[in-house]
Every structure is written in C-alpha cells, then in structure tokens.
C-alpha cells in the first residue's frame, strides 16, 4: 500500500518513515511531566522490535528494482500520555502504581504490566468497585523474537460487564526466564488458556494447578507457535513408526 506510493518516488533508505501511528500515540517530549524514575523504565521508550528488509522478497543479483536494500524498523504504537480520555483514566487510576505503560490504539487500551505486579493488578481489577472486571476472556501468547529481553508476551483480555468496558493487559517476559504468575486463583477461567499458552509458547505460569500440555501430545518436544519453530518439516511418530516431513519423504528426480 504505502510501498506502492513509494515505488513512484524513490526515497533514500535512511528516511524510511516509521509505521503509521495514531495521533494520540505521539510520545511526549522527554523530561516533561513524567517523573524521572518512570521515564527510566525500559518500556517507556518507543522501542524497535524488529527490522523489515527489502520490498519484493528478492535478494542479491536477482533484485533489479533496487528496492532490495530498504531497511524499515518495525515499531508498535507508542505509549500514550495522560489524559487518556473517558473511562480509560478511571481504570488507569485504579491500577496506577502497577502500570508500566499504557497504549491506546484504534480505540483499544492496553496496559503493560510487569510480571511481578500482575497478581496484584488482577486482584484489583476483579475486586475494586470502580474497576469490577468480572470476566477474564483468556490469555494468549505472542512471540517477538527480536524484542530482546521481552521475547514472550502474554496478552490478557478483561471484560467488565458492570461498566461494559474491555481492556487488554500485556505482560512480557524474556525467553531465558519465561516465568509469570498464574491468574487461576483469581480468574479460574484462564486455566486452559494458560495451559495453551504454555503448550504453544513455553510461558510458565507459576502457581497453576496443573500446567501441562493441552493441545499437543504430552511428550511433544518444543513449543509450536514460537517464531523459530518451523511450519511443517517435523517428523511425526506414530506407534513406533516415524513419518518424515513431506519434503523429505520421497525424491521424484
């Protein structure tokens, strides 16, 4: 889309614009209204979580377009500054010291919360009369392999039926230490969702009553939804026999 416009008018690679951001997501100028210790939190900064290279998927001498050398950063919507507007502020007030970062994008609010604060935040979300998020719709993992130190994200969706509000809570943990607390004790609904996130991403929910695989076989090695896990290409074992991946089964040449 935007690339086609660019195709008409070549631009130097260094001036690749960041991906589109909604106006309310422009970060505040540094050092203004944000306490120093808050500003120092790593999640406050706009972070690049990856890099996109080239345009047509061609590399080397096959690239006759000249666009193969383009490098564009992958940037997600940046933190939003107060006031958030409407009930967003009410919820943010209720959770305040526990929040690392708030992102409002396309009318949906996301609270980024550190793993250590998750239990306290969930308890507040459920019990506080102003918040009253009765229902946790579930949790699912997302893997950002290039987001160093925060490779695995657990994304929760909470719903307050009393106030008819919906928020998203995002917790990120490093691949090397993928531990975060289980919300099973507060929201029993997340039981299977946490097992699925463990199965697919290897997120370890401490305190879960039985964190076992749920969709894959019990003895399956690896976590299939991670970005470094291939699509297909895995030999399948059935009753002692091994079936090679499709591309290795037979040579027709």
């Amino acid at each position: 889309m935007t690339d086609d416009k660019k195709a008409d008018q070549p631009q130097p690679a260094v001036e690749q614009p960041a991906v589109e951001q909604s106006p309310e997501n422009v970060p505040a100028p540094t050092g203004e209204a944000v306490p120093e210790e808050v500003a120092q939190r790593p999640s406050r900064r706009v972070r690049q979580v990856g890099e996109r290279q080239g345009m047509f998927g061609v590399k080397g001498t096959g690239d006759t377009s000249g666009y193969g050398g383009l490098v564009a950063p992958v940037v997600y919507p940046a933190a939003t500054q107060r006031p958030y507007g409407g009930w967003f502020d009410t919820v943010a007030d209720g959770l305040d010291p526990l929040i690392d970062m708030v992102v409002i994008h396309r009318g949906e609010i996301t609270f980024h919360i550190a793993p250590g604060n998750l239990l306290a935040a969930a308890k507040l979300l459920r019990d506080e009369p102003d918040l009253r998020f009765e229902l946790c719709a579930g949790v699912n993992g997302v893997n950002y392999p290039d987001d160093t130190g925060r490779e695995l994200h657990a994304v929760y969706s909470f719903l307050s039926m009393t106030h008819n509000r919906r928020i998203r809570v995002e917790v990120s943990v490093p691949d090397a230490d993928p531990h975060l607390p289980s919300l099973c004790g507060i929201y029993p609904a997340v039981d299977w969702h946490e097992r699925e996130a463990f199965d697919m991403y290897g997120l370890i929910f401490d305190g879960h009553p039985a964190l076992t695989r749920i969709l894959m076989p019990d003895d399956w090695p690896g976590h299939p939804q991670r970005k470094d896990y291939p699509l297909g290409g895995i030999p399948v074992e059935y009753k002692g026999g091994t079936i090679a991946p499709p591309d290795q089964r037979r040579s027709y040449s």
Partner: protein
Amino acid sequence: MSTTEDLYAGSSETTDGKVFTVSGQDWDEIAAGLGDDGGDAQERVVVNMGPQHPSTHGVLRLILELEGETVTEARCGIGYLHTGIEKNMEYRSWVQGTTFCTRMDYLSPFFNEATYVLGVERLLDIEDDIPEKAQVMRVLLMELNRISSHLVCIATGGMEIGALTVMTIGFRERELVLDLFELITGLRMNHAFIRPGGVAQDLPPGALEEIRGFVALMKKRLPEYAALCNANPIFKARLEGVGHLDLEGCLALGLTGPVLRSTGYPWDLRKTSPYCGYETYDFDVQTWDTSDSYGRFRVRLNEMWESLKIIEQAADRLARLEGEPVMVADKKIAWPSQLAIGSDGMGNSLDHIRHIMGESMEALIHHFKLVTEGFRVPAGQAYVPIESPRGELGAHVVSDGGTRPFRAHFRDPSFNNLQAMGVMSEGSMIADVIVAIASIDPVMGGVDR
C-alpha cells in the same frame, strides 16, 4: 487361543491398577474382575469415554471417576483436532487468513470469519468505510448461521438422549440454511466469504426471495420443536436441573453465550458492544432463569426466533440496497478479494487481463504486488469480540506492519466453556454428563483449532 477369548477386550495390570478394555457386552467379565480385586477397585472406577464416543460432540475425551453410577470427578482431554490453524495463518496473507479461520468452528464459519475480519479492519482503520450492504449481508449470513448452529445443537442434543425425531427435523431445517449458504456464497461450509473490506460477492439474483421463503417456512416449523420438546415430560425430566451453573460460576469460569443467558443475565455482545450495525436492528436478548440444560435449550430455541426477526429486517434492507457496492472503495484492500473469474469459469476475466496486459503497466504492477504479496496492515493489535452461537468469540490479531498476520489467536467460546464440564457434571449421574456437555454445545474444531 480359544475362540471365546476376546482379542481386544481384556484386562491387564498397570501401576495405576487394573485396566479393562471394554468393547461391549462384556460387563460380566468386568464385574467378575472387579470382584477379584476386593480393595480399591470395588469403590472407585475410572472410565475413559471417548475420544470417539458418539455422544461427545466430536473428538472429545472424557475421563470420569465413578462411584456406582455417580460421577465423582470429571475431566476433559482435548487436542485431538488440533490442526495448527493459528500457526498456518502466520504464513498466509491477510485475505487468505479467512480461508483458514472459517474452518475452526465448522458449525459457525461466518462468525470465525467476521471476528477476524473486524479485527483486521480495525487495524486498517477502515471500520467506517465498509459499505452498508456488506454489513447487512454479514448480519444476514451470521444470523442464518446462528439458526443452523442452534439447530445442530438441539438436534444432536436430542439424539444423545434418545430423541431421534428432534435430530431428524433439526438436520432437515439445517439443510435449508445450508442451501441458502450455497446459493449466496457457493459453498455449504467453510465459505471464506466475509473478507477484509466487505464480502466476496454481491447477492445472486433470486436470493432475497429464497431467504423470504425460508423465513416463512421456519415460522411454520420452529413451533414443531416447541411442540415436541417444551412440555415433553421425558425431555424435561432429562434436562431440568442437569448441568446447573449459576451466574457466579459462569463469570468465574468465563462462560458466555446461551449458558450465561440461561442464568437470567441478558449479556449479548450484539447489544452491549454492537458491531456490523447490530444496534440498528430490532431484536431482544433471550434469557431463562433456571441455569440448567433445559433453560439453555429454551434460550437457543427463542434465539432462533430473534434471528428470524433480524433476517427479515436485513432482507428488507438488502432489497433497498440493490446494486450498491459490497466491498470497500479502496482498491488496494478490495482487489485481492475480488479476483473475478472469466465467463469460461477459469482464470481471470478477459477484461481484466486486457486492462493489465495491454493498457496500463501500473495496473499490472499493482495486480502483481497485491495478488502475490497482499496488502500491508499497520502495526498494532486488535480484539473485536462478537456474539457467536456459543458465546464470546474474538480474534486477537497482531500485525507487525507486514502483509501477513504476525499472530492471530482465536478466543473460542467452546474452548473456554468446556472448562465448566467438570463443575456441571460432578455429583451427577453418568448419563447426565452427556446432557451437560450437549448444553454447552462445544464444537471440537473450535476447541482445538
């Protein structure tokens, strides 16, 4: 080996106790075997039901601990239908994603497509640009789909308690809905018809008359279900008080849909957070106050009447919207969904070929880029839940700014609601487990994805 010895049914000793393989008509052998043991096995029996038991709604495995005929502990084993749809979607373009997600919950394909497409449209920021006709067609198809899904739920639920007539008439009516789907989308299931930006095609000629005819027929036939079941003493005896779960339990376990509404709480996303213009339709949220399987049956039956009301309104609007566009005006989003087929039924239309090959090189470039690579979606994440026949269905769609979904996760109501199976059936009779599961209406394609 003697001929009386059964090759498959037999018993063996394991570390967890004696294991019997049951293949029917061998109860005497089990009773005798249990008698030998004398100890623990006399009191505690663990039965493995499924994964292919006919009453488990697909490939669901139930592990039941019994004391006599009473279930003391019940667990589910799922994953037998896991096909990695979410992983596959990360390797296809945004438009191709609809052909994958439509196959998840195979009884409500339009809902899977709709929640995914609404998420993509929110990320593209084109929610307000979707033509009215596309939105009305989405509503029409979703409500027809709600009827067909509820019919299967009631039909199979009836079959599992021995009410075969409910099954035959349920599938008879569902067939009519599938015929409508075939007329409108070309396929009976797995339509991939709702696409980012609108729907794939306009209504075919004569579709509105068919829809009106179907509504008129359903108004005659829906009372048959009420006459067969509503006051039927056997039906009521099997359903009333079975699978009880109150409002508190529903919220703790995240249950939505007919199960939640059977507690008397009128929570319906079509009313509380409308999408596709549901706020402009006149319909009521159906509730019941018994929190049991019978209440859920009545909620579903009543919801079919409400769906008929919405279909009638949608049909009236479609009659007014004849010739209007069904896809967003931005060609870069619309084009990959509108690859018209030539009059010979093969390949692209000749007009299009003439245009891109003979008249405009820019058009050729755009065709090539958009068809091979797809359009780009701005980075971000969206979650637009909708009210599927089984409850809150939502797609968590994450984009990194590329032409393929970075992550698409479906919060399927069957997956979540099946967690309540244990709470609903522990302490009840083994035959009631089946009724409780039927009242949740899980579809394993959606549970396992």
